[in-house]
């Protein structure tokens, strides 16, 4: 009967070990029953007392083992042989416990990671705030005393953290603001509305003033209890100065544009008025006295009349040019083919007289002013016919899309062509490449085209080879200017 000491010994061991021992004990007891009592059957009716003794001893051992084994929490190590021998006695329970341990360990790990992440994020946030240089970001307690301070605050207001923390934020305000109770009012409003924003002058440590944009936000916990205030201040002195400069420049520009408009009116009226007098009276002179004075007088009158006529054309063209520059037009979705048709109708006489052949591809819908676009076509097609060579003038108009940005129109001719060194000059006001007795004109057509195209946000240029012809290109931005 050595099961009892074995069981007692098992009390010292771990729960897991005890389960193994309990199984072994039952086995050994039964085996002893067989072999220890000379091969007598376990439940021999002839020897009931022996049988009962064996059974009772076995059950008692099992009860003790189970009782102590269940409450045992002491950790113990087992040597490999013992595990081998006893480990598989209660596999299901083992597995359950293992799982439990694993779950607890996993949860502990997850919690630790979360805590680390929170700490990292808080650290990152703290670093961001403390390193922000363009904004003063600070916390105030409920009374308005500074609780935290960042680099931006030091840069903008001039105080170091250690000298300002604990001080009331009213010291950022002018004496006048303080005596008017402005700081307190601001906190009051932030408390009431959750937020207060203001633009005004604030005072630095050295007493200098700066224009500030200030946002004060009331900070409350989950229960709605006020915990303090967040205050973000930006120095907008430079920005304000920049805005004021910009505004001043806009005013100046508007002024000069108004003056230009005024100039256009002067050109249209005050300049034309005396010119009309000179022209009318030389013409009247010519009408009444031509042939009644001598031939010199007739010639002089003819030059005077010619000069007046040219001057009048110049003044009128100048007026058209200044109108192209000044009048505000609203670009719309229009058919560029209609604009070309309008232009060709305008040029009907010129086309007929020169026998020119004008062809065009299918032209797109663009965002532009139709009258202006027609004016560009009149000038370009008109020039293509005017500066023709010996052959019958052939003019072709087409348009291609350049990416998604713009349409590029081209007007190609087989005319005289232009030397490369004149490619820029021809677009300048009153610049001409020909003598007046070769080709009439004031040298304003291409300048007008340039003005119109550029005002609409496009470009104009020419490609040409003398004697072979020219191609004028201009672009129209998709969707109009801007």
């Amino acid at each position, binding site marked *: 009967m050595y099961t009892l000491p074995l069981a007692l010994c098992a009390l010292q061991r771990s729960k897991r070990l005890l389960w193994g021992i309990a199984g072994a004990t039952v086995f050994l007891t039964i085996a002893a029953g067989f072999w220890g009592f000379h091969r007598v059957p376990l439940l021999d009716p002839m020897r009931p007392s022996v049988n009962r003794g064996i059974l009772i001893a076995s059950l008692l051992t099992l009860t003790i083992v189970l009782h102590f084994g269940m409450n045992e929490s002491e950790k113990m190590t087992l040597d490999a042989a013992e595990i081998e021998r006893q480990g598989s006695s209660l596999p299901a329970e083992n597995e359950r416990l293992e799982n439990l341990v694993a779950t607890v360990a996993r949860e502990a790990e997850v919690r630790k990671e979360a805590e680390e992440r929170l700490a990292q994020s808080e650290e990152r946030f703290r670093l961001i705030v403390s390193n922000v240089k363009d904004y003063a970001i600070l916390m105030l307690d409920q009374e308005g005393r500074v609780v935290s301070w960042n680099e931006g605050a030091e840069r903008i207001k001039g105080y170091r953290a250690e000298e300002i923390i604990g001080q009331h934020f009213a010291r950022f305000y002018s004496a006048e603001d303080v005596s008017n109770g402005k700081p307190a009012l601001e906190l009051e409003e932030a408390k009431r509305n959750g937020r207060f924003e203001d633009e005004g002058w604030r005072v630095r440590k050295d007493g200098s003033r700066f224009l500030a944009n200030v946002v004060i936000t009331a900070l409350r916990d989950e229960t709605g209890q006020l915990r303090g205030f967040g205050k973000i201040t930006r120095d907008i002195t430079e920005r304000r100065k920049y805005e004021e400069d910009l505004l001043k420049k806009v005013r100046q520009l508007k002024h000069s544009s108004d003056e230009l408009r005024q100039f256009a009116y002067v050109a*249209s*009226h005050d300049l*034309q008025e005396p*010119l009309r*007098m000179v022209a*009318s*009276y030389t*013409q009247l002179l010519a009408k009444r006295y031509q042939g009644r004075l001598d031939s010199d007088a007739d010639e002089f009158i003819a030059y005077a009349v010619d000069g007046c006529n040219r001057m*009048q054309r110049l003044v*009128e063209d100048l007026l058209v040019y200044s109108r192209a520059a000044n009048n505000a037009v609203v670009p719309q979705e229009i058919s560029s083919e209609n604009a070309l048709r309008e232009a060709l109708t305008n040029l009907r006489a010129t086309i007929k007289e020169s026998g020119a052949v004008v062809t065009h591809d299918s032209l797109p819908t663009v965002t532009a002013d139709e009258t202006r676009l027609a004016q560009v076509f009149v000038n370009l097609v008109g020039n293509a016919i005017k500066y023709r060579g010996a052959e019958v003038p052939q003019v072709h108009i087409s348009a291609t899309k350049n990416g998604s940005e713009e349409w590029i129109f081209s007007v190609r001719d087989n005319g005289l062509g232009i030397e490369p060194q004149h490619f820029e000059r021809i677009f300048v006001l009153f610049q001409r490449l020909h003598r007046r007795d070769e080709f009439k004109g004031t040298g304003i057509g291409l300048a007008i085209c340039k003005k119109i195209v550029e005002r609409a946000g496009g470009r104009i240029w020419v490609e040409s080879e003398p004697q072979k012809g020219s191609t004028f290109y201009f672009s129209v931005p998709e969707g109009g200017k801007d």
Partner: protein
Amino acid sequence: MEALAMGRTVFEVLLVEDSPGDVRLTREAFKEAKVHINLRVASDGTEAMAFLKREGNYAKAPRPDLILLDLNLPKKDGREVLEEIKQSPALMSIPIVILTTSKSEEDILRSYSLHANCYIPKPVTLDGFLTVVKGIEEFWLSIVELPRETLR
């Protein structure tokens, strides 16, 4: 010319114009008119209003059948003169022809808004000017039926 023979043959026209050159050109052009035109001239806006209201020296001034009005005038501007006439119940029925060098869209729109009866930019050439004055005479003094003085 039967219609004319039955209608009036003498017309009073007030020209409000500060440029003597234009006044003379207008006179020259009216010389060839088919009707007799008494052309009176006011050389600024104030004078024009005095003439129309028969003030001072103009106590006996005739009421014009037609006014030719320049816009850019010394003292009182043509635009003010136009506005004043068209707001005066006694004068508003007199047709006003704006005859000016300005071709500005603003001037054109504003003149019609102030009830000008028509707007003519002065042609730059002599022939153009003569044609315009002849046109004014033919249209306003012969084709158009003007209000009669007795009904005014």
